[in-house]
Structure formats: structure tokens, C-alpha cells
């Protein structure tokens, strides 16, 4: 089981755990008997629209790290229930160390025609006769944009004291939804039969759909401005490395010498966002 799959299952298990372990015993006698747990609670969510500007970065990527710029719009039906839309556009990608290692040290057989027929790495070491050829990062899969709808549940509401001086209202939320994802991958191609021409690394864009889930925390600095931090995962299959990974099922032969949809592999595509919340109307209601 891959590390990303394991991490994703762990995230799912944690989200499935009750976010609160139990209830405070209510005093049956005394001045607090029959009293509600909270009075005059500031309802930062109920009946308000939350506009959140939030940059997002991916983590746990094997080859490419993404930075996306996006926003979230949520209407809070109740103080603990909201529906919303989230969208993000990839503005920057950076290859990580593994990508550099593959580019600098991968299979290159000088003097042989094998590299041209190497579907996975048709570059050589990019020196001498291979100078100016495309590089390994050119065939890597990248997330171009994401857009989705989500249902948010915010069961926990409280306060946090920052070094005992500043106190902010907070709530903890989880969400589930679905998203459309625009990805760029290596286009379908086959191992060349002509030994003089390397395999194509042209890329193609497509749209895929994925479930979306996550959790986060909102902190409210005043009546209409706050901050959010959230974890988000979008599991879907795509060919991140641009390599021939098919086929390993029973009865199939590996490799199949072509790049196509059968080379896509499941990834949890984890992301972390930090954003600024603007709430409308600017004045929240106060519970009785």
C-alpha cells in the first residue's frame, strides 16, 4: 500500500473519529441546574456569507509541488451547517528533489539507441548529443485548476487564548464534497518503432472528477474578519510521472509499451490552505 494511500486512509479514520470525546456532566443541583451550556453566544456563521481568500499548497507530492490561488464562498444555513463552493488555480509549480535526481541520474545508454525507445525516459542525460532535448519535468503531471462544492459541518465552537493575552472565537469544521480537477498529463503515446526518434513527451489536459474532504479551523478576530486553516484531500487517479506503469494485473503483461489511461494511479492529492475570511453581513447575531 503506497504511502499516499496510507496517509489518506489515516486522514479518513481521524475524520471518522468523533471530534468530541464526550459531554460535560450537567450539575443537577445548585444555581446552574437546568442552565444551558452557553448563553449569548456570538453566532459568527448562522445566516451569514463567508468569503475566503485562500492560497493553497500541495504536500506529499512525489515529483512536483503546487501552489494554487483560490477562494471559498460559503453560506451558513445554521451556525454549524454550511454549503459552499471552493475554487483554485495553479499559479506555480516546483519540482522536488526526486525529480532532479531522476533528470540527472536516470537511465542513459550512450552510444545505444535504447534511450530513444525508452518510453519512460527518452532523454539521456541531457548533455552532448542530448543537449536541448526536453527534460524529465516536461512530462510530469500537474494540477491546473480545481473547483468543487462542499457541505461543511462545524460542530465545535469555542475560544482560544493566545499567550493569555488575546482571545479569539474559533470553530472547528469538517467538510465533504465533490470537485472537478483540471490536470495536465503526458498525452497518449506508444513506444516508437523508429529508433532514430525519441518517444513523444507531449502533454495533454483533461478534466477529472474527484471526491473532496477535509477539516479545518476558523478563528474570528472581530465581527467580520477571521482566518482559516484547512486540510483538504482530493483522491483521484492520474499519471504523475508520465511513465508506463501498466499492467500488473493477472493475465496482463508489463510493460504494455504505451502511455494511456491505464497508467494512471490513485493519489490522495493532499493540500493545505491558509486564508482570510470576510463575513457578510458584518454584524453577527447573538444567541439568547
Amino acid at each position: 500500500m503506497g504511502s499516499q494511500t496510507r496517509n489518506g486512509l489515516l486522514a479518513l479514520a481521524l475524520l471518522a473519529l468523533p471530534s468530541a470525546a464526550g459531554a460535560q456532566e450537567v450539575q443537577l443541583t445548585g444555581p446552574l441546574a437546568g442552565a444551558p451550556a452557553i448563553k449569548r453566544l456570538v453566532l459568527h456563521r448562522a445566516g451569514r456569507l463567508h468569503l475566503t481568500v485562500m492560497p493553497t499548497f500541495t504536500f506529499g507530492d512525489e515529483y512536483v509541488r503546487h501552489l494554487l490561488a483560490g477562494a471559498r464562498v460559503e453560506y451558513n444555513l445554521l451556525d454549524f451547517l454550511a454549503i459552499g463552493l471552493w475554487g483554485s488555480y495553479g499559479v506555480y509549480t516546483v519540482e522536488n528533489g526526486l525529480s532532479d535526481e531522476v533528470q540527472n541520474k536516470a537511465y542513459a545508454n550512450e552510444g545505444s539507441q535504447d534511450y530513444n525507445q525508452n518510453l519512460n525516459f527518452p532523454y539521456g542525460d541531457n548533455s552532448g548529443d542530448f543537449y536541448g532535448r526536453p527534460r524529465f519535468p516536461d512530462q510530469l503531471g500537474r494540477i491546473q485548476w480545481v473547483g468543487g462544492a462542499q457541505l461543511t459541518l462545524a460542530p465545535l465552537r469555542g475560544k482560544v487564548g493566545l499567550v493569555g493575552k488575546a482571545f479569539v472565537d474559533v470553530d472547528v469544521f469538517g467538510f465533504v464534497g465533490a470537485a472537478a480537477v483540471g490536470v495536465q498529463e503526458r498525452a497518449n503515446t506508444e513506444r516508437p518503432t523508429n529508433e532514430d526518434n525519441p518517444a513523444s513527451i507531449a502533454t495533454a489536459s483533461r478534466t477529472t472528477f474527484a471526491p473532496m474532504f477535509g477539516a479545518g479551523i476558523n478563528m474570528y478576530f472581530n465581527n467580520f474578519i477571521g482566518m482559516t486553516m484547512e486540510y483538504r484531500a482530493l483522491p483521484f487517479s492520474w499519471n504523475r510521472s508520465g511513465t508506463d506503469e501498466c499492467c500488473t494485473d493477472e493475465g496482463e503483461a508489463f510493460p504494455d509499451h504505451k502511455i494511456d489511461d491505464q497508467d494512471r494511479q490513485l493519489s490522495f492529492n493532499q493540500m493545505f490552505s491558509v486564508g482570510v475570511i470576510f463575513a457578510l453581513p458584518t454584524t453577527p447575531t447573538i444567541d439568547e
Partner: protein
Amino acid sequence: MTFSTDEAQQPPAEGQPAEGEPAEGQPAEPAPGGDVLGELAAQQQQTAAPEERRAPRRALREEVVAVQQIYALRKGRVEIAPSFGISMNDPFVSHPALALALNYYVTEVLAIGANILWFDYGPAGNLTTDTNFQVGRSFRLVIPITEYQIAASLNFSYVPLYGKFALFREFIVHWDAYVLGGVGAFRTRPVPVVDPDNRSFDWGLRISVVNPGIGFRVYSSRFASIFIELRDYIFLEKFESLEINGDDPRDPDTWLADGSTLVNNVMFNAGLTIFFPFTFDYRLPK
């Protein structure tokens, strides 16, 4: 002084004091005959009858808010925390661990203790990932990897945050957050991938320092909670040498790479916390 039934049935005229009572705003006359209680009462009436009362500067609160005691005290209690951990930042080998932590709270916010992580507990420990396999298969590259056997650390914990959450505005949930650090050691060894036919490695000890971490506890009772923790174990690791000695590949002195590599093993743990003793007494100021 004479009374008549007519006088007894008639109340005093409005604005006029009742017979024997001082007029409004007027201090009471001292009682005759040296009556101490009467004198005291007269003095109190003097001081309590200012000519005008000042209007309150702000509206008085109608209710008194009761301050709730901390739900679970920690001072003087021992914490036992079994958990399951998983490495977060190793793309080539997954290191799931069974962990156990033991802490003693010297004060309400400061604890000393130790924790142990067991990695080599069977087939599920130290698993190579799909990325490690596919990089080798697709690009004919070998990635030097290591496996962990066991790790232990002495720790200091500090609890800077304590608070309460309301669950659906009906139930109160108590929580706290802590930071920790310490020193420890990892027992690791390289996995021979460059020259597995000739090389084999013994377990070695790597000292881990600082080991910063942060955790979050939610209390289910006054002695139990569930927690999550993220911690970075920092140590210098020895990897397999990428070069093979053509003259004598079985020379153990050539199997390890020159120098060491700084490794940050980020572990995410989730588990239970049990405090002993189960109960505690509040000592209120006299």
C-alpha cells in the same frame, strides 16, 4: 399622648412621617434613655440616608456567571499514552510505529517523561512504497533506504493552551494543546539495494536531538482523553554507499556512504491518554 380609634384607622398624611418616625431625609433622633441599639440604628440611618443617590455608571448585570473549574487537573499525575504513529515525509519507506509515552506532570503545565516507538513489529513495519518501486522500475535507479527498529526519547512537555469547545452548543468539551521536545535515539540500518548480494548491515544507534512536537488532547473524562501529535525526530543517518568496490565488494568498510545525512523523520501519532490517579481533589483558597 392620647389615641383614638379614628387616628388608629387613619394612615399618616402623604409626605408626613408616621408618628414617632423621623421625616424623610431627616436623621433619626437618638433614642432616649441611653439605648445603645437605638443609637447604632440612628447612626446607620444617618449614613444611609444621603440627600441624593448617585445614578449607577453602568447597568448592573442581572446574572452572576459561575467560573467553571478546570475539568482535568494534571499536576502530580502520571500520564500513559499508547498510540499508533506513521511517518509523514518519507516517500520511499513508510515507518508505521506502535508507540507508548509516559509523562509525569511536575506542575499543571510542565511534564517530564519518555516515549518509545517500535517499528520492527512484523510485516507491516518499514514498508517500501510504490514510489520507491516505480522509480526503480521506470528509471532503473536505486534509492538508498533505511529501516527503523526502535526509538526512544526523553521529553519535556509544556501545555500553553487550555480551552473548551461547545459541541452543537449543547455539550462542553475540554481540550488542551502542548508542545514538547527532548533527546533520544533511533536504532536503524540501511537496506542493501545497491549490492544486496554482498552487503548486509547491522543495527546502529543514531542520536536524535531537539525532537520538537506539538499535540492536541480532547478529554472524554477527567482521566482519559484522545490525542493527536505531530513530531519531528532529527538525527544523522547512515546510508548505503552508491559505489561498489570492484576489487573487493565484500569489504564492509566500503559499504556505507561517506559522512552522514541529516534526517527529519516527521511522525504523526494518534492515541489515548490515561491519567493516574483517576481522581483528584481541588484545593480552593481559604
